[in-house]
């Protein structure tokens, strides 16, 4: 077994995660975690849909921000995809997508304030970076032969319209629709920093222990996501896109002086602002590094590695739930429901809920990340096993699982896992806002202390860390010759 590189890499990551467990802060700190959890489930079981007058509006805003953000992101992402082969463009896109939507929202809040543009851009910018990358990959894979056959003198645009786009259209459409779902999740969590989407009310209800209200919001959100195939129709899309900007809410007018101030004063490191020169800057930077960046980086990495392996283990445990090779239709349907809930709950919301119930430590974060990401990978792998035909006399039960199925899906399982490595790290960093000591904690603290220069440095560090993990993840996938399509 050890001669397989995939097995060796898996064991290496497992060992790192186990070592991480020893240094990580894993604990349930509430006195009655199970009672709280029980109350939460009772809340979900007895939803109160009429608690907040703003609930429907919030739902509408969630959809509106999601649509406008994803539409703008996909438009600009497409333009960027056309020039994606240029190195500066690739670096630019890697950079904008390495910064999480919530961080973008926190940045824009400082100068656009509660203007709809804050929420729209917070989604559109990172999504444009992701769209650019994926669209360019899709375009690259299109058949080059038709364009070679065009008569010389055909304009580049006509050639693109006839010979490239139609070939990738279905893939582009499928991926964009998929991102729209992600966009609704992103839109919902923007409420946690004060935008008028679902997260706003969810946070309020939760922090006040009004679980029935929170349960109603979660149920509405699941219904919204689960019914997307019904209400998102290609023919209705133009109507939605035209209507969406009207439902973003009013917000407050933009004061452009604030924008200028943010870029020319707020984010300039304070020693430079105060004329302390380079000496002041280096001691300031040293202070940021030692007291905030390094502990933040350390905790982010530890939590990421533990959560990555937990995600992997959970995916391997979960995929039989929806695989046709195990259990009957009843078990598979309930498996589907479980995985749909796990993957359509944003990890931020899952982590928030678990933190409220279990108290602050890395444990709720690990469980939230593993549930959400494991739900996604488990679903993809489970679906893959349904395409496998076993011989009639194949063994059953655990032997079937371990001898027949896992070996066949292990490579694509690893591919998905390493693809999500960077995503898990981005989320890990952001969970700091909830009070776990990852980079997001220090970013949030800096913002709470109105020290945007520090916040900016820490966000840049977070982005570099994500880019680093992305590169490493791709390197490992290439080394092991693993291929995958993007997930979000």
């Amino acid at each position: 077994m050890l001669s397989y590189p995939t097995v060796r890499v898996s064991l290496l990551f497992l060992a790192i995660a186990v070592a991480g467990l020893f240094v990580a802060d894993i604990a349930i700190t509430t006195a009655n975690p199970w009672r709280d959890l029980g109350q939460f489930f009772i809340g979900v079981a007895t939803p109160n849909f009429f608690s907040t007058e703003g609930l429907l509006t919030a739902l509408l805003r969630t959809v509106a921000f999601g649509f406008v953000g994803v539409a703008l992101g996909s438009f600009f992402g497409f333009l960027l995809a056309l020039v994606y082969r240029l190195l500066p463009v690739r670096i630019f896109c890697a950079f904008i997508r390495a910064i999480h939507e919530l961080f973008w929202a926190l940045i824009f809040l400082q100068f656009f304030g509660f203007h709809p543009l804050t929420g729209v851009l917070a989604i559109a910018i990172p999504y444009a970076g992701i769209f650019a990358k994926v669209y360019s990959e899709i375009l690259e894979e299109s058949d080059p032969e038709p364009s070679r056959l065009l008569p010389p003198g055909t304009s580049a645009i006509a050639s693109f319209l006839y010979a490239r786009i139609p070939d990738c259209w279905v893939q582009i459409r499928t991926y964009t629709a998929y991102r729209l779902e992600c966009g609704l999740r992103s839109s919902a969590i923007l409420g946690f920093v004060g935008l008028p989407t679902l997260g706003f009310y969810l946070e309020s209800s939760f922090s006040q222990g009004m679980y029935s209200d929170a349960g109603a919001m979660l149920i509405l959100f699941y219904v919204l996501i689960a019914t997307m195939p019904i209400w998102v129709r290609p023919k209705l899309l133009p109507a939605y896109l035209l209507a969406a900007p009207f439902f973003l809410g009013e917000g407050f007018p933009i004061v452009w002086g604030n924008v200028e101030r943010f870029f020319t004063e707020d984010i300039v490191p304070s020693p430079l602002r105060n004329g302390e020169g380079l000496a002041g800057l280096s001691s300031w930077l040293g202070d940021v590094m030692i007291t905030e960046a390094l502990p933040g980086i350390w905790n982010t990495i530890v939590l990421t590695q533990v959560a990555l392996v937990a995600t992997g283990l959970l995916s391997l445990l979960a995929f039989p739930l929806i695989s046709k090779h195990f259990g009957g239709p009843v078990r598979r349907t309930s498996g589907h429901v479980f995985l749909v809930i796990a993957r359509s709950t944003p990890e931020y919301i899952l982590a928030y809920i678990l933190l409220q119930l279990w108290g602050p430590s890395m444990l709720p974060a690990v469980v939230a990340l593993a549930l959400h990401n494991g739900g996604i990978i488990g679903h993809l792998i489970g679906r893959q096993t349904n395409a496998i035909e076993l011989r009639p006399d194949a063994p059953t039960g655990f032997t079937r699982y371990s001898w027949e199925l896992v070996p066949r899906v292990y490579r694509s399982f690893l591919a998905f896992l390493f693809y999500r490595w960077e995503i898990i790290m981005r989320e890990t960093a952001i969970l700091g806002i909830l009070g776990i000591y990852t980079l997001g904690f220090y970013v949030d603290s800096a913002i709470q202390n109105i020290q945007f220069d520090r916040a900016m440095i820490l966000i840049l560090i977070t982005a570099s860390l994500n880019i680093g993990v992305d590169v490493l993840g791709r390197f490992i996938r290439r080394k092991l010759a693993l291929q995958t399509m993007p997930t979000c």
Partner: protein
Amino acid sequence: MITKQIRKWLVSGFLTLAVATTASAQTFVFTAIPDEDETKLVERFRGIADYLSEQLEVDVRYIPVKSYAAAISAFRNNQVQLAWFGGLSGVQARALVPGSEALAQGVEDQAFYNYFIAHKSTGLERADELPEGVRGKTFTFGSKGSTSGRLIPEYHIRDRFNEAPETVFSRVGFSGNHTRTLRLVESGTYDVGALNYKVWEKELEDGNINTDDVKIIWKTPGFPNYQWTIRGDVDERFGEGFKDRVRQALLDLDDPALLESFPREGFIPASNDDYEPIRSVASELGIID
């Protein structure tokens, strides 16, 4: 067909922008730091909005925010013109907006104080100074930007133990607000916490505290706290003498139900200088530059 769609799209975009601009051009907007349960805040400040609107004869709107920093930013960005700040957030906001001033404070805000509270399992009892026994326990502040939830407790912890809170306690958290601190210590999630005495007393009066589970272990010395702060440029926008009218309206506020919702006995004049002690403590702790 395509150009028509683009035109429609652009028009719709401009419309939303236009709507957004006109809606609040002449509305006097205020906010408040989210130091307690949001439902309570919304209820309380909607009442204030109605009262001010009547007194000032302009549209007055309250917007709830999710963090202390968001309240400060909205004030700084002139998206709100008036805010109910804590001691620290007021100092931060006024430093960022030249010309802004503290208008009025609650009677009780001249000498505000904090309670350190502990869960029954710690066995800690009320004392004249912060008990040595808190060492090694878990501890929660309120919000990171809070005066009574963060600044003052941290000052006293450092003063008492000569160490950072992270080394005194085995775990340090930020609950988010005072109500939440109370709930977390009451349920035993944290052993010890520090909160605004007003929140404690109001919850106690309303019968929302199980005093078997949680008790006060120390009361801090007094410090200046909450105040109404207004931007310096409101007169230009809402007419000469507007600032004074706002101050007068606040000082005149005598609706018992509204005052009870804060809860304050009434409002008295305040000045920026009243908050110098807060500024110097914050600067000592490195929270402000």
